[in-house]
Every structure is written in C-alpha cells, then in structure tokens.
C-alpha cells in the first residue's frame, strides 16, 4: 500500500467513525472529501471534476473498495423511500487503519471534526447542491453576485429552484466558505 493510499484510507475511516451513529453514505463521503480538499486544504491527491450529480473523483470509490476488501470499512445496502443506497460503517479490522497515518490524522483533526459537524447531517440531495455551489464558486473568475452564481448552479442542476440555490449560497457565503461572493 502506498503512503498516499494509507493516508486516504485513514481519513475515510476517521470520517466514518466520527459520523453520527458511525454511519456515512457513499455520496456523503465523496462530498465530505471534496469539502475537506476545497474548504480546508486537506490534500489527499484527489482530482474532483463536475458531473450532474456534483463533484466526483472515481479514485475515492476505488480507495473505498480497497478499504472494504481489507475489512477496514464495511458497506451495507439500506432502503430509502425513493430507492436504495450504500451506507458505510467501521469494518472488523478498522483499528488497523488508525496507525496508517496517525500524524496526518492528528494534524487535521480539527478539519475532520469541522467537516463532519457542518455537513454530515445533510441529505444526499443537499450535499450534491452545496458541493456544486462550492465548485461553481471556485470556478467563477473574480467577483460575482448571488444571482449569477445561483443561475450558473441552476444551469447544471435544473431540478433545484433558484430560491433554494440562493438560500444555500447565502448560508455558505455567510459562513465565509465562498470566495466569489463579496
């Protein structure tokens, strides 16, 4: 296992263990890792790009599969009113991952706590929306305003109303998480 992979898995395990009920959806972990990289500069070497379902890097899921093979993280199917999803929880060998990169985990403990507290309770739909807002914000060149940013997000995600997008932009901007809105 490379150092980078060990670090990534250590962070994933830490996120799962800190999540409410020690459970985290696969969509959620993708977005939390994106937020960590973009909003807290926790560099794990992922390269996120935008899809209609929000920022995504297939390497995250590849690394998760690896952690699953090693029984460090378990995955189970859960039913939702609208379908099914996958939920992650600590696996039988999860303790072995704590030593993978303990120094990195200590160094970024506050970032991990922050991202869990701020985003882990959001629905998959809201995580998709908020992460797309942050992505569009980071791509916006120079200053922009709420309406322009909201429209650019709606162009990508036409299922959300401008009102809902604007509300989220207002919230995230108020917390100092956006760079293009002043």
């Amino acid at each position, binding site marked *: 296992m490379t150092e980078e992979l060990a670090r990534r898995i250590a962070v994933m395990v830490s996120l799962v263990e800190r999540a409410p009920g020690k459970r985290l959806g696969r969509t959620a972990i993708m977005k939390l890792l994106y937020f960590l990289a973009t909003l807290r500069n926790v560099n794990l070497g992922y390269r996120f790009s935008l899809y209609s379902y929000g920022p995504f890097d297939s390497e995250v899921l590849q690394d998760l599969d690896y952690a699953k093979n090693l029984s460090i993280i378990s995955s189970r*199917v859960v039913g939702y009113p609208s379908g099914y999803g996958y939920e992650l929880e600590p696996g039988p060998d999860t303790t072995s991952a704590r030593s993978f990169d303990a120094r990195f985990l200590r160094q970024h403990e506050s970032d991990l706590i922050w991202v869990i507290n701020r985003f882990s309770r959001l629905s998959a739909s809201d995580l998709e929306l908020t992460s797309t807002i942050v992505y569009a914000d980071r791509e916006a060149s120079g200053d922009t305003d709420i309406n322009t940013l909201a429209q650019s997000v709606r162009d990508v995600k036409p299922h959300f109303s401008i009102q809902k997008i604007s509300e989220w932009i207002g919230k995230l901007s108020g917390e100092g998480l956006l760079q293009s809105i002043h």
Partner: protein
Amino acid sequence: MPKSGGNYEFRCPVHGFIVLNDWEREIISHPVFQRLRRVRQLAWTEYVYPGATHTRFEHSLGVMHVATKVYESVVDRHKPVLVSEMSFNDDGLGRDKQLVRLAALLHDIGHTPFSHASEDLMPDRPNGRKYEHEHYSAALIRGPLRDVIENHPTCRNYGFKADDIAALIEGSATAKQSLFWREIITGQMDADRMDYLLRDSLHCGVGYGRFDLHRVISTVDVAVQADAGSPRLGISEGGWHAAESLVLARYFMFTQVYFHKTRVAYDVHLKEALSDILPGGQFPSPEGAHLDEFLAWDDWRVLGLLADGRGGEHGERLRKRNHYRQVYHTPESPTIVDLEHLKKVRAALGALVVSAQYASKSWYKTGAPDIPVVDDTKHRFARPLSEYSAVVRGLPSSNQVLLYAIPENAEAARVTAEKVIKRVHTIVERKTTGTKKPRVRRSLKRGGRRGGRS
C-alpha cells in the same frame, strides 16, 4: 476517405462505417489530431499480443461514433423527459449532439506517447498535483484547435466555442445544462469504455472484452431519481444484463490484458527509458509555449531515440526484449494477511526486487455513479444496477501487487519467495492444527555441527 451525400466515411474494423461532416473532417486533418496516428493505444502490449498495434486515432473516431449512437438513442426514445425535466428544445438538442460528438472525438488528443504508460511523467501543476491527459486535451482545444473549431462555417449553426467542448471534457460548471451528457464521455457506461473494450479485444485477438453494444445503446434511458438533484443517464430494465456484461467485459480485459505481468513490465521499462530521454525527466507542461514542445512528442520520436541507443538501461531492455520478470504477486484482492505475506517476501528478497507494481482497479463503482436502472412500471422508478446485479455488487476491486526481478535473478527470487510462503503456511498450519515443530535430537544436532567443523 470516400464522400457520401455531403458526409465523409471512414472504415472502422469495429463499427463499420463512421460518418463525418466537413467540419469534423477539417478538425481530424489538423496536425494536432493527426498526431494520434502516432500514439499507440496500448503502448508495448504488442510484445504480448502481437495484433495490438492500433492507435488513439482510430479509437477517437470510434468513441465519436458510439457517443453519437448513445445520444441519438436517448433523444429518440426519451425526448419528452429531456424537454420536461431538463428544459431542452430541438435547437438545444441539435447543438448538444454536435458538442458531444466533438468532445468524444477530441477527448484523447492530450495523450502522451504510448498513452497511459508514460502518464506518470506529466509534470506537477502549481497546486502540487500532476497534470493529466485531460488537461492537455483541454489546452489543445482552447489553443491550437480553436481556430479550426470556431472559424468553420458550420460552427455558426451551433453557436458554441472551443471552451464549451473543453468544459464538457474537464467537467466544469461552465458546461451548464450540457453537463448532463458528460456521462457519455466519461462515466461507467461511457462511449470511451464501450469502444476501447471492443477495439482492444479485437486487436489483441482475445475473446474477452465483448458485450452487447447494440443492446446497451438501444436501452439507454433517462432516470429521474426522487432524492437526487438532477436527472441522470441510466438504462432501461430490459438492458441491465447488457450493462452488467459491459462491467464484466472490463473486468476480464483488465485482468487478462491490461494487467498482464509482461505488459506491466514493459510499462516500467518504457516509463524509465522515457524518464531518461525527456529533458528534466518529464513532459513539457500544457501551459503557454510548452504546449508546442509537448506536441512534438509522439511514439515515432521516442522509437527513433530508442533506436539511436537512448533510454539507458531500460532503453536497452526494450531494444533487446529483455524485460523484468515477475517473481511474486499477491492475490487480485489481497487481505491484510496477504499484505503481511507480501511484506515478508519483500524483506526476504531485498535488493532482488527491482520493481513493485500495483494493479489497482475497481470494476464497478457504487454510490453516485452507480448506473440507474429504470424499471418497467409506469412510475419509472430508478434503482442502481448494483441492486439488480449480484455479480456487479459482489465483484471485488483488484489491488494486486506484483514484484519483479531482473531475468538473471528471477529464478533465485522465485525460489526464495516460495520458501517464505511455505514457511508462513507451515506456521499457520501448525497454529491451526495444534501440531508442534518436529524436534531435532540434541545429540544428532551436536554431532552434525562437529562433523561440519571437521
């Protein structure tokens, strides 16, 4: 290239005729695209599968063809959903079809010589992460190809810019509504994958990699998921076995062809030889004037330099077909115990191991990119393919580690590795069965020592 009814036709060994319009023909004739004739699709794979000499040129044409078929199938069968859920109109759909064709055609123009084998030699970006071939593709579209894209009379009918094609390839919010189609360019059921599996399978002459392309195309669907933000490309219930066969085709091609032990060894030699040849040990960046320097690198140039004796030790190994030999490998999906064994083997082999390679790949990704399967009911509920298919759900990712030695040391290294593993298995067996290590009689042992000294 014969002309037929205002269009041009290429013969393709996989798809039959591939049709181009005049605009696309001009783009293909541009030196940036023609360079792909000199970039082999599978690097040094022909040393294992002699037929694998095909290039990124024919693959790119194939991807455009498949992307078009997928696009047309979606629009023909699901236009009402696209109109109601995505607010598309006829003009928008016509524009996006051409956009998808060009993005598919140009998605690989940024490849380094010998494709993926030399990608590790791309330089670092200012943020410390490496450039990838998509960055080069986007830079070439925005740079040297801009003129042929934007100043052709046909472009006026569609009203998009070179930046729109680059944005779709890169995955940028500036792609706007067209981002919906990105999964045709890059996703778990994308045109790239559908083409390379069939094409590589054909040229390698293997029976793996095949799936029912026409069934996949004819059952592509638009899934509207209640809890998700946007509609997604998916597949109708009648096509999920075809989608499943695509996943399995990929699994077999990777395990049997792309991760073949000798192919992996040649990738090592190629990368090391190139590292020796390239100024500073890496390719020029896609920024500014360096882009022209990058374009000068193709397979022909590298082969010429290798033929001239360049590339150091690894160049010599390529010239003499004297590749590293695999001496040990873990299972495809190693457990913690397998990784412990690997550690012991590596420690025992020491300097005999000259390279450790990781064959890592997930065959199917669940979560957000899971292919939605739209059921046959009037409600059109969407559930992920991994829910339908136990095979897809249960396919563990590959994380195999392969250890290599130079040919002269290969046999000794294999014997040592076998001894280590045998010892480990013996210890495990004793622990499991409760048997003890056979005792050696003290007197005999002493006698042996004495005898040894005399």
